[in-house]
């Protein structure tokens, strides 16, 4: 034999090609009778043994107060901590001296979904969401502006808490 083949010494009952093949055929046939584990995705988004984790970090959502204004106070912490540099924030100030974002845009293409913006936010305004259906017809639509971020309705992520690692 041209190729040097290392052959393991195995007990006699384990070394038959024919018996092994028949055993394999029996095994695959037993799988034929088992129920399939496929989730029919567009119709079904969760099964008995699989749902999206509540810690899933998806596209962002900006929470609003009772008047429907965003909770953001334009402190500038989120663009500061963002490792992907995907948040654009231009702060403004009204007559009472309250700061609010003039421009707040998140480029979801640049975002790495680390969730730091949610962790750092002192007002609990910006959140990453439990959401994954983000298809758009144009690239430009992936830059979410403030209005769009406020209009999102999907649930927000419960980030991992080091003091409560199991999420209880």
């Amino acid at each position: 034999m041209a190729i040097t083949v290392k052959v393991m010494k195995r007990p006699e009952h384990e070394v038959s090609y024919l018996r092994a093949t028949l055993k394999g055929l029996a095994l695959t046939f037993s799988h034929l009778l088992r129920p399939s584990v496929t989730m029919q995705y567009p119709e079904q988004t969760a099964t008995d043994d699989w749902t999206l984790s509540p810690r899933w970090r998806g596209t962002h959502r900006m929470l609003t107060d009772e008047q429907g204004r965003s909770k953001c106070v334009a402190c500038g912490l989120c663009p500061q901590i963002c490792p992907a540099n995907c948040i654009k924030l231009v702060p403004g100030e009204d007559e009472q001296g309250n700061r609010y974002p003039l421009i707040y845009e998140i480029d979801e293409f640049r975002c790495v979904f680390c969730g730091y913006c949610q962790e750092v936010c002192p007002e609990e305004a910006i959140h990453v969401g439990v959401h994954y259906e983000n298809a758009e017809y144009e690239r430009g639509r992936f830059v979410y502006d403030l209005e769009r971020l406020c209009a999102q309705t999907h649930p927000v992520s419960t980030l991992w808490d080091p003091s409560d690692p199991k999420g209880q």
Partner: protein
Amino acid sequence: MTPEELKGLLLVSSIKIGVVFAVIMIGVIMIIWVERRGSALLQDRLGPNRVGPLGLLQNVADGLKNFTKEEVMPLQADPVIFVMAPMMSFVAAMLLFAVVPFAAPLPPFDVTLPLIGHVVHEGPVAMVIANLPVGFLFILAVSSIAVYGIVLAGWSSNSKYAFLGALRASAQMISYEIPLAMSLVVVLLLAGNVPLGDIIAFQQQTTWFVFAATLSWLLFHVATFAETNRMPFDLAEAEAELVAGFHTEYSSMKFAMFFIAEYTGLITMSALIATLFFGGWDIPFTTWDEQEATNWSFGTLFRVGMTNLFFIGKTFFFAWVYIWVRWTVPRFRFDQVMHLGWKILLPISLGYIVVMASAVLVLERLGMVHDWKYGMALFAVNVPLVALCVFGLDRDRLLLGARLRSQAET
């Protein structure tokens, strides 16, 4: 031959060709569907289930997609051979079915039809496209042409992966052609003639050749896996090593031609196993299906229909075995394939010919008539032979290295 008989022959042949071609094409679509859904079920998945009920139209959709895709030809490819290769594969695969009988014969007819006029067919209408006197020799010859399609495809692509696939295909298919033919020598010894119709008649008279020539069936079955280029011997297109093997450079309908040819080969080889070793269209334990067809009655047509159903059922069963094995057994290494072909299958088949020839000679001398006892006597010869082979095919005895090492240890 009178003009009426000629017209009858032409009419019957063209109808048979049209029907068989259409049925094979639909069968290919169905068997690809079975392969995809079956493999999915074997892996606890669902498989394609969106296009049409149960995903039945998925392959039609894929075929349409292939028709509309761009044809890519490598710049350095040989244009004539590159285009010819898929055709050769396809035609060779299609031709094989011409000699396979698929039902009990229809009765003779003598009718006047509109447009065609008076047509006559003397004797029963054999349900086979071409009742060639050379029988399965034709199959051996044409199935060898199929390898040219693969080799030329790989060579003309001017791509190293395609070329390697073609080299493997040529080496592998030539070495498995020999055990394939050798295992059929035993069938020839028993039946005494090569046309498949005669082989079926002999099996109806005695027993199915799976009993009379069990080892022959095993050898033939293994060799057809290599001949149809299917797992565990699909080395010509080993995805892990050779991208896609001989059809790496093929796209759109040219690729689909190879695909259809592969599955046509699968159906034909299943039909051949059914015909050669499992009685073809014979219905077991009955004799009413073997009577001469004399008149056009409901009984005759029912008989033809039932035998055809049995033939399709057997063919489908072996096609399923091919699929089942494909999704069970992993691919062999190339030296293992060659080892199995030349050092195991070939000596076994040669030895088997000698043993069976002696057995047939002894039975002839004893003056045994060709009935079921004849088949059972041969089966009694086969059982120890099969047991011996199964015992001898242990891995330890198979691989040279293990033997040498155990000898060194003792």
